[in-house]
């Protein structure tokens, strides 16, 4: 591939998929800063490994897989033991009413799901991938993905139905700090 072709392909990938990748990274990590880092990491990895992308039509799945791998690497492993145990749990929920929840409660409930349930569930809710594509991204058999999706949906609903207590306050991220005062252009003393 010529360098100019690479650049054009990467620009096309950014244009088409950056919003989806950011949303996926945000739902995975629950943090805007981490989501942006993961998105940037995905495109830089794509830049370095673009030769590995044989079929541009699978770029969306490929990029999502890069995001997830980077996220798992940051978190030092996917917590397989918990996920394996949960594979046999979460029977359908009997509830007389629909749960009432907001965006923060949804994210908090997602954060509580084991990653092996959270990732496919997010991709399923995004309505961008078939079960087969999700299974390929997660590198597990189709049957396992369907089973996990079924349990993940039930688990999420259970969490949001049983966590109907007082709503949690939204997460406020701290303002970015300037370098420490040893830096030659550190923040002056009078800044609050």
């Amino acid at each position, binding site marked *: 591939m010529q360098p100019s072709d690479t650049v054009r392909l990467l*620009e096309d990938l950014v244009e088409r998929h*950056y919003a989806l990748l950011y*949303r996926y990274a945000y*739902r995975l990590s629950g943090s805007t800063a981490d989501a942006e880092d993961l998105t940037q990491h995905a495109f830089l990895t794509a830049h370095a490994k673009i030769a590995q992308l044989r079929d541009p039509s699978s770029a969306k799945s490929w990029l999502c897989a890069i995001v997830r791998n980077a996220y798992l690497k940051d978190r030092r492993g996917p917590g397989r033991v918990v996920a394996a145990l949960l594979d046999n749990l979460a029977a359908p929920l009997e*509830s007389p009413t*629909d749960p009432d929840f907001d965006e923060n409660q949804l994210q908090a409930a997602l954060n509580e799901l084991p990653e092996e349930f959270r990732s496919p569930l997010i991709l399923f*809710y995004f309505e961008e991938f078939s079960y087969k594509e999700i299974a390929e991204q997660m590198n597990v058999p189709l049957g396992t993905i369907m089973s996990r999706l079924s349990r993940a949906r039930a688990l999420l609903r259970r969490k949001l139905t049983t966590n109907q207590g007082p709503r949690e306050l939204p997460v406020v991220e701290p303002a970015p*700090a300037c370098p420490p005062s040893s830096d030659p252009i550190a923040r002056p003393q009078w*800044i609050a």
Partner: protein
Amino acid sequence: MDCLTARQILQLACPALELECPAASEPAAADCARAAEHVQACGACQSAIAQQDRFDRRAGQMCRDVAVPLGLKHRLYAALESAEWQATTVQRALTGATGVLVASGNRAAQTTAPSAASGKTRRRIAMAAAACLLLAWGTWQLLAPRPPRLELAAIEQAAALEPIDSALLPNLARFANGTAVCLPNSVNLSRCTIAAAAKECWLAGGQVAVYQFTLKKRAGSRSKPLPGQILAIPRVAVASPPVAQVFLQGRVEYIGHFAATAWSEGELVFVCFLSGGEDELQRLAVRRDAS
């Protein structure tokens, strides 16, 4: 078939609640058909499935509804541009240097072959190889692609003429090239109300950090606080960085409704804009006797 088994089979087979038969690895087609038959005749199951469906629609909608930060696409392009520039530069350097090494190596091999050259000849060969390497490095320095440079005047114009609504902009702690964003030390902001965090703004094609502030009115004055802003840009990204090294060492220019002055400090180029004249800008100068 009982309710729980029927729902589990259907959920497992058809997470989207499409009542169709699953793939071969999923519950047997006969079980699926019996489960579907049960649900069609069972009000409790229909209600439970409809409830899960409503939940999925709502959770799915909320899950997809994530605001993408302003300027993210530009930041990604900038990061990719920088990576591409580094990759091409390294590649060119490697091919250039390897070519020289191979050429000099071959020559050395020829001369050190059976005839056994003297120490003097070997020194000459080594010097020639070093000269070749130096020449290649110099040529690469001259010819290697450079990242695009920003015109400070264009950024100043854009900043002065287009009002920047910092409430809509994301915070910026580090530029795409890794330089940390920070306020200058040579401006006295003790009379100003200023946000601790810089906002990211794209002006004239460049990534700029913007600190908006208001300068408190003079004691006894009836005038309103004066709005101003400090722009910060990585010095390496600016085509001709200002020679001035502290605030107000350079010229004061009038752009739009602002008096403005630019200078280079640390790794950054700063431009300070203040609504008002040069006299008001002087109020932001650090008094020499104070330090």
